[in-house]
């Protein structure tokens, strides 16, 4: 199969911008709302998610000729659940703080539509390397998206960014940005998560609307210009004919 140049790069980048799983496809919303109280927790969630996504995509792609049509979904679910359990145990052993912060949401990666969706839609049809790149792009895109949500929630909700509580191997520090007493703790609550998500989606819709408007405007202008040109040409022709008639 011949591939166009730069395919791998495009394949990677599509997960981050054009097909961002959270902001464009609106998938995986549960952890995006539940684990975005702090940037650190969101980063941890994104990391675990990416690991599961990559592992399951690669394995599904490896086994794609072995797994027949009927047993696709159960086989994929078993594969995903296996990696989630392994990741859960590893987290519990080596990052216990992350484990207790995320709690049941580590197990819930199993039912995250993105993982099953990528396995069904991409990894089951493509080569191992392409699936790996696709999964990496999607994972990074999702991680960046939930970090963006956590950024606003932590900034407005607590007025500061604190690190080192979950990843205990880095020294703990706190970056106070909004003075104490001026934070809006609503943004740490569930309601704040919904509002932040709504505003981000609205901004994206706004930008898209703008783009579309510009596009249609340009098209309309081009159309008008074309019409005018045609009109001008017709008039010139007419004038020419009239002039020719007069000379006759």
């Amino acid at each position, binding site marked *: 199969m011949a591939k166009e140049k730069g395919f791998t790069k495009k394949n990677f980048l599509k997960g981050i911008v054009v097909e961002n799983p959270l902001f464009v496809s609106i998938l995986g919303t549960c952890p995006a709302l539940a684990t975005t109280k702090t940037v650190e927790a969101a980063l941890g969630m994104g990391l675990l998610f990416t690991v599961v996504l990559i592992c399951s995509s690669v394995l599904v792609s490896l086994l794609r000729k072995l797994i027949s049509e009927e047993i696709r979904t159960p086989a994929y679910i078993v594969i995903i659940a296996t990696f989630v359990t392994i990741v859960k145990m590893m987290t519990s052993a080596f990052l216990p703080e992350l484990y207790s912060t995320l709690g049941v949401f580590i197990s819930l990666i199993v039912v995250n539509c993105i993982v099953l969706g990528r396995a069904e839609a991409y990894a089951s049809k493509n080569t191992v390397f392409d699936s790996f790149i696709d999964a990496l792009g999607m994972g990074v895109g999702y991680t960046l998206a939930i970090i963006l949500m956590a950024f606003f929630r932590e900034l407005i909700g607590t007025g500061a960014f604190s690190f080192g509580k979950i990843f205990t191997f880095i020294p703990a520090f706190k970056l106070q940005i909004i003075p104490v007493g001026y934070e809006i703790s609503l943004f740490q609550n569930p309601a704040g998560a919904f*509002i932040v998500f709504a505003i981000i989606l609205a901004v994206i819709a706004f930008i898209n609307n703008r783009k579309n408007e510009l596009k249609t405007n340009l098209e309309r202008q081009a159309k008008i210009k074309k019409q005018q040109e045609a009109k001008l040409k017709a008039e010139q022709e007419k004038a020419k004919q009239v002039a020719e008639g007069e000379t006759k």
Partner: protein
Amino acid sequence: MQIFISFILAIISSMLIDNVVLSRFYGICPFLGVSKKVKSSLGMGIAVVFVILLATVICWPLYNYVLVPAGIAFLDTVVYILVIASLVQLVGLFIKKYSPSLYKSLGIYLPLITTNCAVLGVAQGNTDQGLSFLDSLANGLGTSIGFLLIIVTFSCIRTRLDSANTPKAFKGLPIALVTAAIMAIALMGLQGLFSGIKL
């Protein structure tokens, strides 16, 4: 009597105060995806109640009487998701055979339930939190009814929102999310509802 009261309290608190969608964030995907029409959200909600109850009744004994004695409690997530996936299939077949009309209205939502976090979340939470069977049942019942309640209410609001004059950028999902936020704030007010009751 005391058991009965605590059973009822557990149902109400997991249904309203600690609502599955608006404060625990389980099942957001169907909450946003299947709530455009009241009828479809009702179908989805009822199907979820069905599957969550069955999953609770099966997963709790399976964990405590099979997995733990056999020393393979660490396989819980894999077992739960398999139980849920096959339950969804079975419920689908059962309804198809005995009530084709019900299948017509519920059938399309059944496959979506496998990837609904509420089901796995309840099954996993019950055993992770170490609840007793009765409390698990209360948790399952309250959670699923809470889901039904919220998704139907939300779809009613959304049908009205369609005809409302919202800013262009907020049309569709963003304004629905803002609505959900306001609903979440309303439910926050119910915290401490039972503080007067002494057990």
